[in-house]
């Protein structure tokens, strides 16, 4: 019983990280229809910047927001320099552009920071808490809390604020949104900035548990992308659920079946879901446009 509890704790911690990355994917997709493969790099920018600042003696409550702002700036630059000039390009070009951007960012981070693995102390210490036979790190609570907060913020922001509704309107029909007076350019800038900030925040929160180095972004992006697709692209609820599900599948497979194939089991579930329910668990039905 305590074993199961430990597996669940592990799955939720890891899943919450995937979910945060997936929420970033979702926001950009909602605004622009672009799945941003460079999303994982924001996580690394957040983690590496925070680690560098904390290593230089900056207190964590200053370093963390600065790292998020750094991620945000890179997000806006990414949009302005790489995505905006190619907005009407076909899907495959956009995939290549964001993958190219992620390779570029990886190179830049290796030049700006270094090739070492980094970590800093958890925000509330590293002494594990005991809950009914299982143990959990206080930082895991920060990660899970962070993901839920981001989800709640997005749900509120997209539905209840003018700027958020602008993003949604821009997504469904940019021309029409512009006609009714929505500043679509600002909506796009905003969505990239926020999405990058979410990614960087995930990095800042996760680094005490997962560590970080300049080249972990690809794997982060792959897991986040998988979570997004599993939950259904474009749905914040789907991103949250998809991330947690993948984390849980991995932990339970490692616990009960075989740790060798825990990553495989996540992909098998994704393939099955796509075959049976192509729009993902929470995605809207795809209607084919003629």
């Amino acid at each position, binding site marked *: 019983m305590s074993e199961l509890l430990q597996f669940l704790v592990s799955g939720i911690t890891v899943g919450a990280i995937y979910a945060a990355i997936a929420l970033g994917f979702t926001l950009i997709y909602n605004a622009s229809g672009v799945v941003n493969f460079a999303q994982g790099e924001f996580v690394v920018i957040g983690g590496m910047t925070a680690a560098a600042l904390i290593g230089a003696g900056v207190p964590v409550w200053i370093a963390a927001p600065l790292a998020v702002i750094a991620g945000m700036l890179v997000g806006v630059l990414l949009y302005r320099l790489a995505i905006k000039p190619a907005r009407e390009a076909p899907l495959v070009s956009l*995939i290549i552009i964001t993958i*190219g951007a992620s390779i570029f960012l990886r190179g830049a981070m290796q030049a700006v920071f270094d090739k070492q693995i980094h970590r800093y102390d958890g925000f509330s210490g590293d002494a594990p808490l005991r809950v009914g036979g299982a143990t959990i790190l206080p930082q895991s609570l920060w990660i899970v809390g962070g993901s839920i907060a981001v989800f709640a913020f997005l749900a509120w922001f997209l539905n209840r604020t003018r700027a958020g509704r602008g993003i949604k309107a821009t997504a469904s029909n940019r021309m029409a949104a512009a006609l009714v007076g929505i500043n679509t350019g600002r909506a796009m800038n905003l969505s990239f900035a926020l999405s990058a900030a979410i990614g960087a925040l995930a990095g800042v929160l996760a680094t005490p548990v997962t560590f970080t180095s300049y080249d972990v972004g690809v794997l982060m992006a792959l897991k986040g992308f998988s979570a997004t697709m599993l939950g259904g692209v474009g749905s914040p609820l789907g991103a949250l659920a998809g991330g947690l599900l993948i984390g849980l599948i991995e932990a339970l497979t490692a616990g009960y079946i075989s740790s060798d194939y825990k990553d495989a089991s996540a992909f098998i579930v994704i393939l099955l879901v796509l075959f049976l329910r192509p729009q993902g668990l929470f995605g809207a039905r795809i209607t084919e446009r003629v």
Partner: protein
Amino acid sequence: MAGQGTTTAPQESGREMQARTEPARRRVIGPGLRTFLIFAVLVGLGALIFPSSYFYRVGTLVWINTLAVTGIVVLLGYVGLVSLGHAGFFAIGAYATAILPNYGIPSPLAMLAGVALAGLLALAVGRPILKLSGYYLAIATLGLGMLIWMVLSKEAWLTGGPDGMVVSGMNARNLFKMVGLKLKSAEAWYWVAGFAAAIGAAIAVNLAGSPSGRALRAIHDSDVAARSLGVDVAKAKSRAFVISALYAAVAGALLALANGYITPETGGFMHSVEMVTMAVLGGASSVFGALVGALILTALPQVLTVFADYEHMVLGGIMVLTMIAMRRGLVPFIVDLWNRRKS
């Protein structure tokens, strides 16, 4: 809306290519044979100017990549389907060629078996996967590729695990010895890879001009429209998927033999991305795009060794800039420039 529809741009240049090959068909030399001859001349030209085995080695990699990317051209350029898992098929071809000789099966048969296996797998998974489109298709193919990569790195008793395995078996040098030619093995592999790429290109060009090729292009424009023209869309897509998997597998088998050593990374995500990037960079609508893309991305890291520390930045930057400035790829871009200057 960018990102939601299927690709739209490459097809235009595809039609141009089609249009330009039309008069050629009326001549004695068909478009396929013409392509083969052009490739053959290029292979020969390389051999004329290469000063050392090192150049032959890079040249071999260019031709092997061209062959693999030609498969992507069929899938992406002709039909408009994105696969982020084709390195998986590449690796199946490579590993079959490496593994089977250890069980007493000669290399040529092992190669064939690997290619057949890749084709069968593509056939089996093609139908359900190809019902998806856009990003859903991308993630499904990505997942498939990852699964293949995982099996290759976990089943160490068969594949040697993540450290990879030695490929014993034939050397291309012996092929040439049989006809009395004495070549260094790097040169021999260059000729074999070049010949394979030329044949592959010719077949792809012929396919484009055939009725089933026209069906594929109709799907590229619109699934629904193609269906109303009486095209069995699911079957045609599945056929293109299988064909492109075969290309990848043959290329993988050649790489395994030419290198004498393979690791699971040949089936990894980054290799899949590399294949698609080569196609899109050169121009996914034609086999010449495949060649140009393969040439650039294979030769570039060799040129960039001087700035090893900034290699990633340069590579990523080139990918982004090309996609912004030359959306349909280099070859169509240059063809357009050429045509504009003439008129």
